């Protein structure tokens, strides 16, 4: 192509208006977007809050180097010399099964309640107002820490498995309603419309279209919650006297000060948690992607 000199200068000039330059005349290579600015601000604020936090924590005159040395020694004892001294290993296994059972009960009760409420919380299956009421309620339930729900129910039900299961179920219901209703909302609206046009009623739509097409998602979310509930059940055993391996851990740590027993219990919990995580990851890879 033959371009006269004036033409090519014209083209260069028109390009120039798209090129951004710094004050010294260099061409900018980084795109400046509001997105990047917000990222920088967030990082700066987090860093500032962290530094401020470290400066203001109530350390109670702790000797840090001494405490760290002691921690390393303790962790060595806990993880390298685990041993049960107050109960045989079969008893410890039985306690883990109790914790598992607590988690299972919580998950199954939570899943049943969440399934019903999740249908009403999904915007495409219910109306806007009902959905918003349920979602607001769920947000509140999730904001209160699980242990506080358990302790609140413990006042009327007494400390034990009933309060633990109800308290843990509250949180599970909150989590699962959110997960379930989002899966329901992802359904192709055409399917529901087609069924409506053929004269299907609400229940038929739910059982013939919605539940079958979401079943794998529901399974994956429910198992993920089971995994979380196991961790929570351990914690509730320790903090709210719900029994199980968490309670044994609390006794070993806070009453007997038996590091080796804490180590043994930690390994047991870790083993079961790893098994659950493994299953959960497999389900997720198989069904969620």
């Amino acid at each position, binding site marked *: 192509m033959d371009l006269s000199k004036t033409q090519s200068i014209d083209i260069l000039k028109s390009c120039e208006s798209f090129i951004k330059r710094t004050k010294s005349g260099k061409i900018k290579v980084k795109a400046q977007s509001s997105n990047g600015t*917000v990222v920088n601000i967030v990082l700066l604020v987090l860093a500032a809050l962290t530094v401020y936090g470290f400066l203001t*924590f109530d350390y109670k005159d*702790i000797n840090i180097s001494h405490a760290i040395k002691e921690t390393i020694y303790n962790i060595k004892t806990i993880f390298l010399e685990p041993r049960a001294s107050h109960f045989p290993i079969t008893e410890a296994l039985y306690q883990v099964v109790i914790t598992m*059972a607590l988690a299972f009960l919580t998950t199954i009760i939570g899943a049943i309640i969440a399934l019903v409420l999740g249908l009403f919380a999904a915007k495409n299956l219910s109306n806007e107002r009902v959905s918003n009421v349920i979602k607001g309620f769920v947000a509140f339930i999730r904001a209160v820490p699980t242990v506080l729900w358990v302790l*609140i129910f413990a006042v009327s039900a007494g400390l034990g498995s009933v309060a633990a299961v109800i308290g843990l179920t509250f949180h599970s219901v909150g989590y699962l309603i959110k997960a379930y209703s989002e899966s329901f909302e992802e359904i192709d609206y055409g399917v529901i419309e087609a069924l409506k046009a053929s004269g299907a009623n609400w229940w038929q739509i739910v059982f013939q279209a919605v539940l079958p097409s979401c079943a794998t998602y529901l399974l994956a979310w429910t198992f993920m919650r089971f995994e979380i509930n196991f*961790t929570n059940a351990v914690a509730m055993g320790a903090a709210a006297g719900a029994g199980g391996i968490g309670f044994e851990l609390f006794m070993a740590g806070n009453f007997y000060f038996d590091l080796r027993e804490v180590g043994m219990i930690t390994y047991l919990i870790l083993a079961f948690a790893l098994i659950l995580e493994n299953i959960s990851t497999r389900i997720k890879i198989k069904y969620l992607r």
Partner: protein
Amino acid sequence: MNIDIFKKRRRQATIVAAILIALTLFSMFITEYDFAKSFTSIPKAIIWMFRNFYPDAKSMTRLPSILLKLNETVFLSIASTTTAGILALFFSLFGSKTTKVNNILSTLSRLTASAFRNIPDAVWAMIMLFSFGQNALTGYFALFFVTFGVLTRAFIETIDEVSYEAVEALQATGASYLEIVFQAVIPSGIPQMISWILFMIETNIRSSTLIGILTGTGIGYTFNMYYKGLNYNAASLVVIAIVLMVFLIEFVSNYVRRVVL
């Protein structure tokens, strides 16, 4: 033919339901869970909450000290999350398929993260309690360890998801490892990572309540003190303060997520 499929499906559903029911009954048996009692205790608890579980004028005088403790807890969860995030970034760079240095380091960092993640925070709290006692640092480390494990896994997934093509392009131009990390991996992954960090801050505020009850620190200890002292009005004020704080942080992080992602 069709009928057989339906029959088979129905039989499968029945078997699954039977197994679930059997497991439920077994669980109820060994945990001594009483269904009837749980049904009667829910309305009882609700009535009790309306009668006793609200802040009154006297408990409002304790508001400043509650807010002070809540403040400490919030800073604790922010500090533990950000510091854990920095460490998790290194581990995830070594652990990720796209940016790993070698297979041994990759497996090692994944295993470390998995162990830290799968030991519950309650257990970490008990372990740290031995040497740090009733100190803010006990809660800090308990939160730090679990957050580190969770964030490493999340960051590895983020890096693998986001930056494969960018890394390949930079490799083709002959960029060094550090250049690739700082010019491609971190810039393209940072919005997702921030989203995860904000999520963990939210989670950690709730977890630190539990850790506080176990180790006698922060807002959890404040709640436990009022709760055990039967001062339910003040305890309810603690719950309300926590809920409002969680909502506030959720609001801010949702805003940031909308802009960043």
